[in-house]
């Protein structure tokens, strides 16, 4: 996964973006991140999958990732090479799935100041989002220690493997 402290383009979405809008249900017969990436936001923002680049960020309003438990949604963003997701708030299962996949996520109430196309980056340890285009920074909720460990180890799989081999 690319380094979230490196600046990347922000793709800005609104409130209540549910998992059907991130990965329309007709495509989730696949579990392949690269394949899923080609359909990410397909109905909502058809140009996304063609133009997103490795190191870009998804930025959203309230309750991002609500709806189903499908891990296909964060996985499609991993497949698209997204460095991290910044939202004013997250639905629980999406947040959890992202952490488990090692996809950095930050809850950032000031994320609505970010415009589409701004260059942003994340400081995960400190819980800060930088907006390089506007020269601003926004406080985010730092991840609790346990979740930081999970993200740092690369997600739940790596964490569990390490635990099993102890």
């Amino acid at each position, binding site marked *: 996964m690319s380094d979230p402290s490196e600046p990347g383009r922000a793709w800005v979405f609104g409130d209540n973006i549910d998992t059907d809008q991130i990965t329309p249900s007709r495509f989730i017969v696949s579990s392949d991140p690269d394949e899923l990436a080609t359909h990410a936001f397909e109905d909502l923002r058809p140009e996304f999958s063609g133009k997103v680049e490795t190191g870009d960020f998804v930025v959203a309003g309230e309750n991002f990732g609500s709806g189903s438990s499908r891990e296909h949604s964060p996985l499609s963003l991993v497949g698209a090479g997204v460095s991290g997701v910044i939202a004013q708030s997250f639905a629980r299962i999406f947040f959890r799935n992202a952490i488990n996949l090692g996809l950095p996520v930050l809850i950032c109430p000031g994320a609505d100041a970010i415009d589409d196309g701004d260059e942003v980056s994340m400081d995960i340890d400190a819980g800060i989002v930088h907006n390089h285009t506007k020269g601003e920074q926004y406080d985010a909720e730092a991840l609790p220690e346990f979740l930081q460990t999970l993200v740092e180890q690369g997600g739940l799989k790596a964490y*569990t493997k390490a635990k099993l081999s102890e």
Partner: protein
Amino acid sequence: MTGKTLAEKLLSDKSGTDARAGDYVEAEIDVAMAHDITGPLAFQTFDEVTGEDADLFAPDRTIFTIDHHAPADGVQAANNHNAVREFAAKHGAHQFDVGDGICHAVLVEEGFVKPGDLVIGADSHSTTYGGIGAFGTGVGSTDLGTALATGELWFRVPETMRFEVEGELADGVYAKDLILRFIGDVGFDGCTYMAAEYGGSTIESLPIHERLVLSNMAIEMGGKAGFVEPDLRTIDYLERQTGEVVPFDDDLHSDEDATYDSVHTYRAEDLAPQVSKPSNPENAVDVTEVEGTEIDQLFVGTCTNGRYEDIKLVADILDGEELAPNVRMVVVPASKSVYQYMLQTGVFQTLTDAGAVIQSAGCGPCAGYHQGVLGDDDICLATANRNFPGREGSMQSQVYLASPATVGASALYGEITDPRGVQTERYDDTVFAEVLS
């Protein structure tokens, strides 16, 4: 220290710690479930974490269902089904196949879940198990795959939001109306990261099939779990379903001095039948506000309201009648036993006589995959749980959510209709059991 909520008690018990809201714990899982969509990804995780030949943490408490794309609507779906069959057979887990029914209906009916269990399902409506007093919660495939290997999973202990309802529901008003109102009041994300807890005399008097509706839709307000404290009614229900003795643990309730995030109180008499307007479950209004809205399709089914009592209620209303000429009705029983009881009791005949289409048990068009998806500009009234844009088909289609009684009444007139104008029953838990015996 103050007392504990049921959520705190259960996670304390399963983690061997003194768990309080906000703590992170690693807890032992009692039951794990995945289906044809989420299973394949979980299997990959399992194989990656442990190596393919490792054992499941508890094959006898692991259940896989084939319900979402069942029967298969394409080659990839069929391949996913085979992946479920192979993994289940290889590891000796329980597996339910095409036509056996929706995961959440099957797990409850077959008695896999008991009060006080910690149940994870790779499906967001796994909150359903709270209706019988289990901590049921939806997780992703990575969660499930690793938990299948270790029998444990991390949790943030949730705060609890309590919904307290006193009094008697009016005729034509059901648990579905209550939960739509709760979601309307706290909002679609109002209970995010929290457990919902439903109590009070109204809830205590509800049969289990209605309690399951409340817990099922906890996720539509963001809830991590949705509890009804188990009581003797719960035990009776489980004993009838399974034919086994189920012990009653009288500590499975929140302590009186437990700390809640908030408590929301209602009078049952005040509640009118509710309808959630497109395209969010939180758009709940009294049925009178949307009465007369023309509809194209009626959908009766899902893990929320596809049980026998729900479908029977619709059949009662349609008995000897025909669907209004402008509508079609798709009925999808939640489980094979529901399907069979419909056959045995004449419900099947009544519904087909009225003009309904009845499909094999499963999720049907609920998530827009197959068996009744909506076209552009179609308007559907459904007993389902979600009405997001495009949920049941075209992004231009619209879905209204309501109780089986409201859907049944509306079928007669081809427009959204107040069920209080038609005769409706409230079935207790013995109806289904009577057919069983």
